[in-house]
């Protein structure tokens, strides 16, 4: 009997805990926003300062799901996210044009850089044009790591290969990791390969990597982030007020100020440059 008693006490305790869990999630439902965003905003640590500031100000809770821009937009298309913070301009325009998103607004930018081992086997250092650099990498057959995950970075990389007139996919020297930016940089560092990364993620990981920036400053390497609200006309379950509040926040003076200074203390230079209100 002793066993039964202790067992039933235990059961009751667990049931209570479960109910507490359930209640807390039900209460949270209307006050939560699902933000689908890219790995770069999370891996660089920017979200860890932006989100608490927003939550404190607005009382909403933000569930930031960091995936590639491609997946983030898929989530928006299916109405499984309320607001997107992404960096894949061509895909974004299509997303809005097809009626999945509204109110696409410019938030910030940084740039992409081509990084690689300091030995630089394809001799691309100081190349002004990313196109030439990619051509040299292909000609030398030097290892290149691609994200391969439909992220914003991957989209840009594909665009660059296309403009260089090279069909990289399937080549022996071209490998796809299918991982986030941070992990792909780790793979590139480990295998001494080249890759394209946003500067923010690179700077935040730099001290561990042993990869150096080889090509930068080309206009085609601009990395632009937009905030898009998911169209509530298409998906009635979208948290309209929350999405708007978050989008308004990231382009507000306060958030733009946070973006402007984020990273200076830790990495010596800002990781992102605020752009709200500017033209592209």
């Amino acid at each position, binding site marked *: 009997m002793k066993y039964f008693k202790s067992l039933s006490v235990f059961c009751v305790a667990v049931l209570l*805990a479960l109910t507490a869990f359930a209640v807390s999630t039900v209460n949270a439902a209307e006050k939560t926003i699902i933000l689908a965003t890219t790995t770069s905003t999370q*891996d660089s640590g920017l979200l860890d300062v932006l989100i608490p500031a927003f939550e404190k100000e607005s009382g909403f809770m933000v*569930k930031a799901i960091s995936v590639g821009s491609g997946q983030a937009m898929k989530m928006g298309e*299916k109405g*499984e996210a309320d607001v997107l913070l992404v960096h894949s301009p061509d895909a974004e325009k299509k997303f809005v044009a097809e009626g999945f998103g509204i109110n696409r607004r410019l938030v910030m930018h940084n740039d992409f850089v081509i990084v690689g081992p300091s030995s630089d086997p394809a001799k691309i250092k100081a190349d002004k044009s990313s196109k030439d650099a990619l051509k040299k990498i292909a000609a030398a057959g030097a290892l290149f790591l691609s994200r391969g995950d439909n992220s914003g970075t991957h989209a840009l990389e594909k665009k660059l290969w296309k403009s260089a007139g090279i069909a990289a996919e399937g080549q022996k020297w071209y490998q796809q990791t299918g991982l986030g930016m941070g992990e792909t940089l780790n793979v590139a560092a480990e295998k001494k390969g080249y890759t394209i990364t946003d500067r923010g993620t690179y700077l935040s990981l730099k001290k561990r*990597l042993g990869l150096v920036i080889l090509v930068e400053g080309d206009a085609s390497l601009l990395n632009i982030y937009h905030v898009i609200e998911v169209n509530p006309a298409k998906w009635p379950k979208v948290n309209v007020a929350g999405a708007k509040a978050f989008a308004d926040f990231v382009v507000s003076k306060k958030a733009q100020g946070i973006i402007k200074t984020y990273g200076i203390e830790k990495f010596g230079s800002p990781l992102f440059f605020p752009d709200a209100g500017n033209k592209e």
Partner: protein
Amino acid sequence: MDLILEGLIKAFHLFLTLDPEVLGITWLSIKVSGLATFISVIIGVSSGMIVALTRFPGKKFVVSVVNTGMGLPPVVVGLFVTVFLWRNGPLGFLNILYTPTAIIFAQAIIATPIVMGISIAALQNLPNKLRLQILSLGATRVQMVWILIREARLPLMAAVMAGFGGVISEVGASIMVGGNIKGYSRVLTTATVMETGRGNFDVAFAISIILLLLVFLVNYIFTLIQQRERPR
């Protein structure tokens, strides 16, 4: 090598300074995987018992399905649960995607076949005549079930440990249905993946070490219960 050392030092540092974030993540892992294991034990042992103690056509088929389920890949469970829990999915009205509750749900699905499979084996391993003997001594059915569970205590505790070990260490489902949200649905395994991605290998190591210690501690307690002298 020095990374592992750095990780060890970091782990002790995080623990000794009682880093609130790491403590929160650890506590959530215990809570989520503990509850998931508990649910799986309730469902797994009872249904395992029914399968083990009754005879019905297609029993072998059911048992092999359960045994296949023991190797259920967490990412596959994560994918299915995500699709079901989507706002516009069949269980969307529950509104639990990207919550700790969703992780419990997914982990319970992962652990249940493990617990059930081992339970079936454990109970089938008991001597056949034991049941008749217990009943003939005048026990009620509830008493019989209870005695059988106690008789099979060693392998049943192994089932609990296997279930818990399976879910506390899985990352695929947790990251998909939980979303790895800071201070809310981040558990030890998803934090390890994220910190590795961020290149913070020392923190990743520290969290892994905490995870290992936690798994050891829980299994140690379970083993103590399992190996306890049987009260006569």
